[in-house]
């Protein structure tokens, strides 16, 4: 092998109605080979009806260092959840 082939992330839709979910990754020389490898490696037991592959280098990810800045602000906004509100039982299901 002259180089490691590009890494692709594999996403699989288990059945129609569900969203694609990350399954793992494969190396491949090109997109078509990535699809073939993903099929062989991740769907040997009918695990999927659709596959997405995308080059890992194309994924833009948030940095764990920033996670406080990104996600903490949502933590104290409990009023965004239905359980924050008290509705008298007599009102019934809401």
């Amino acid at each position: 092998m002259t180089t490691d082939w590009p890494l692709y992330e594999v996403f699989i839709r288990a059945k129609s109605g569900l969203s694609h979910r990350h399954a793992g990754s494969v190396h491949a020389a090109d997109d078509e080979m990535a699809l073939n490898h993903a099929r062989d490696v991740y769907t040997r037991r009918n695990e999927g009806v659709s596959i997405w592959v995308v080059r890992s280098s194309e994924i833009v990810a948030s940095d764990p260092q920033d996670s406080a800045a990104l996600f903490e602000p949502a933590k104290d906004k409990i009023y965004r959840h239905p359980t924050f509100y008290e509705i008298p039982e007599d009102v019934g299901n809401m």
Partner: protein
Amino acid sequence: MYTQSLDQQGSKTEHAADAETAEQLAAFQKRVDAEEKIEPKDWMPSAYRRTLIRQIAQHAHSEIIGMQPEGNWLTRAPTLRRKSILLAKVQDEAGHGLYLYSAAETLGISRQQMVAELLSGKAKYSSIFNYPTLSWADIGAIGWLVDGAAIMNQIPLCRCSYGPYARAMVRVCKEESFHQRQGYEIMLDLCRGSDAQKEMAQDALNRWWWPSLMMFGPGDAESTHSAQSMAWKIKRFSNDELRQKFVDATVPQAEFLGLRMPDDDLKLDEASGHYNFGEINWQEFYDVLAGNGPCNKQRMRVRRAAQDNGAWVREAAEAYAQKQAAREAA
């Protein structure tokens, strides 16, 4: 186990260079203790990273080399049914190797480097795959015992603190159960067959039992990496604990087959409910690890030949991809 926690190449020397503060280490341990999963981009101690790379790579290599002893019987499986099953199992093992290589890569080692370390002999793989498959019954014994032992080890690894390794293990464990059951079914068929078939099954058990027990790695007193791996929740049970679980689960299965375990000291301890078993020949274990098992040289020769013989295919695929990309750009 497949990882046997046995790498001797001291990576401890690099320790001095690790600029890790006590606060970082404590914060990391706190996350681990809280059963939080560690993900690739998270901060981690470099020794944690090295331990995982070594263990996952060793595990991956074992899956790949492990295809050889069983592959040996693909063309000689006794029926088409058995042949299809064995083919599917060997294909699964290739898949396991690939899931694991991907998991190791998330820690910053390249696939190429891992393969190079296997081919050069620097990286280890499980000692079990250096034993020959002499008869069809060996395929039964491998599925039943070797995959059985692997399952014992891999189920707790599904809860490993490192996310990508744990997720790979979940996938692997789902597939392993079929491996063990098809092996036991082969043994069942043989044990219900002629005297000669039953003898073949017994002979396979005689040869695979002790090497299977060695798969769990050295005893707790000898196992140097264990304590740290437990603290980091890479490991959940000690080698001896897992070995005992395996013996306890397997002895009744042998009894059901009507086979005799090749161990005169094997005895149920009524008080504890566990089986006591005889002394493992650790000299044999270390000899096999050192490269002197019955098939070490053959396994490496076959693996290197596969690499060399496939070179033109990889080169052609790469050239084709480059040509397509150039055409698209034009």
